[in-house]
Structure formats: C-alpha cells, structure tokens
C-alpha cells in the first residue's frame, strides 16, 4: 500500500487549482459586469469580482511563499465559453443568475471542497485560516446572488390583482 501523500503536496495542488478557478471567475464576472443591465446587480457583481480576484492574488502569494510558481489553468474551452456566455448581452441577467445558481443547490455547496481541506489541514495553520475566510467569502457570494435572484423572480410569482 502506498504511503499517504504529504500534506504539503496536496495543499499546493489544491491552492493552485483554487487560485486558477478564482482568477477565471473574476474574469467571467468582469465580462458580465460590462454588459449587466441591472444597477443593483452590477454593484454586487463588482464586489464579488474583486473578492474572487483578491482570493486568487492571496493564493498566488501563499504559493510563492511555499516556493511554488502558480501554474494551474482552467481548460481554455471552458474559460472561453464562460466568458462568452456571461459576457453576452443576448443572455439576460436573470438567465445568467439561474445558470450560476444551478451549480450550487445550497450555499454550502460552493465551499464543500474547501471545507474538506480545512478538516484535513493541520500543519499549515496560516493557509488554513486564509482558506477559512476564502470559504466565507464564497458562501456570501452564493447567498447574495441567490437573494438577488429570488427578488427578481418574486414579483413575477406574486398574484396579480
């Protein structure tokens, strides 16, 4: 039976993958902001995009401190398709919200991979606390977008007098 992978190895891989995902997410959100037709949504997206970019920057910085050059990248067709769809003025904001939220059936779904890592990470405590706050940011993002989406849909569901 092979020995378990040392913590440092799997932590580095996780941080790099998460960094790549957060950087791509910031890019997709920037494309959405550029065509977003709803003032309130645009305001929230601006903060969420910066949140994702801050996470990517912090994770890259942490990898650098561990002596690792970040190298993970989202598959180009996946990234390009997301930028195209969320940056399209032909797709409504409501459709984009529904598309995003379909990936996360509940607020915790966005942070499950990070929560799993937090359970196992017991040597690198600085990274653990960075990830804990990154996870809280992700939860806040999903919760805010879900609440905004519910507000958009609610008037349509209300009985008409």
């Amino acid at each position, binding site marked *: 039976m092979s020995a378990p992978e040392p913590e440092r190895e799997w932590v580095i891989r996780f941080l790099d993958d998460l960094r790549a995902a957060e950087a791509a997410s910031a890019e997709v959100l920037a494309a959405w902001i550029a065509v977003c037709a709803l003032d309130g949504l645009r305001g929230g997206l601006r903060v969420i995009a*910066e949140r994702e970019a801050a996470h990517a920057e*912090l994770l890259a910085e942490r990898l650098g401190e561990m002596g690792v050059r970040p190298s993970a990248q989202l598959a180009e067709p996946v990234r390009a398709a997301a930028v195209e769809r969320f940056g399209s003025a032909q797709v409504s904001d409501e459709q984009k919200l529904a598309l995003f939220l379909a990936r996360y059936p509940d607020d915790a779904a966005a942070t499950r991979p990070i929560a799993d890592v937090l359970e196992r990470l017991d040597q690198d*405590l600085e990274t653990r606390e960075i990830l804990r706050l990154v996870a809280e940011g992700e939860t806040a993002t999903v919760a805010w977008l879900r609440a905004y989406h519910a507000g958009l849909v609610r008037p349509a569901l209300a009985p008409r007098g």
Partner: protein
Amino acid sequence: MLRPLPGSEPARVLGLLDAFQAAEWAGAEAIGRWIVACADVRLRGGLRVIRARDRRHAALAEARLRSLGGVPGARPSRDLAALCGVVADPGVSDRSKLALLLGRLPAGEDARLGELVRGAQGDAETQALLETIVDDERASLRWLRRMRDALEREGA
C-alpha cells in the same frame, strides 16, 4: 463640473463613499503593519485576507465615488486614526489589539453596517456595492471574534 447641493441625496451618497474609502484605506494600512508584527500564524493568515479585502473595498468605493463625479478627500476620523495607531503598533500584543478592536465595536455594530447600506438608498448600484461589502465586513468580524476567543482560551 456640476456639484450636488450639500444635503441632497447625491451629496449624501458622495459623502458616504468618501468617508468609507478613507476608513478602508486607513484600516488596510494598519492591518498591513499588524501582519508584519503578528506573532500567531493563524491570526496572520486571516489578517491577510481582511487586508486584501479592505484594500479592494477602498478601491471600489473610490471608483464609485469618482464615477458619480466626486473626488476623494476625506480623512479617517480621529477616533479611527487612533485605533489604527494601536493596531499598527508592534509593541502591543495580538490579544490586546483584538480586545481593543472588538471592544470598540459595540454590540450594535451590525446596525451601524446596516445604516451604511441604508445611507445609499436611491442609488441601487451603490447600495448593492455597500451591501456586498458589508457581507465581507461581517465575516471579518465573526472571524476576529473567533480568533480572540481562541487566543483567550489558550492564554496566548
């Protein structure tokens, strides 16, 4: 440039954004200096996230202020400047900084953050911007309280 009349709704939003960006820049700078002197790796990790967010909040508020025709000119209040001085001081322990920081924020801090958001009523983009920023601020406060409790339990 046309300037909004003092006391009018746009003037209120500009003033709110200006004060907020000044406070966030000051907070980010003080936390940056705390990080350098911080003795606890867990605390340092979280402070790094909080500083990164505060910087971006400041930049977002400043950008919004400029897009509305305002010019940043506010300075942090004397009270905040004094608090930042302690937070940045390498001679003050981490526990003392946490106690001071969280002690200065009354139990009604949540209400104050809510007021910040309500202050931008009438400007949907600014209001959503602040609402989402406030989510980060609440998460930071929750995490700082947990760290304070952990350090107190450990007697650090």
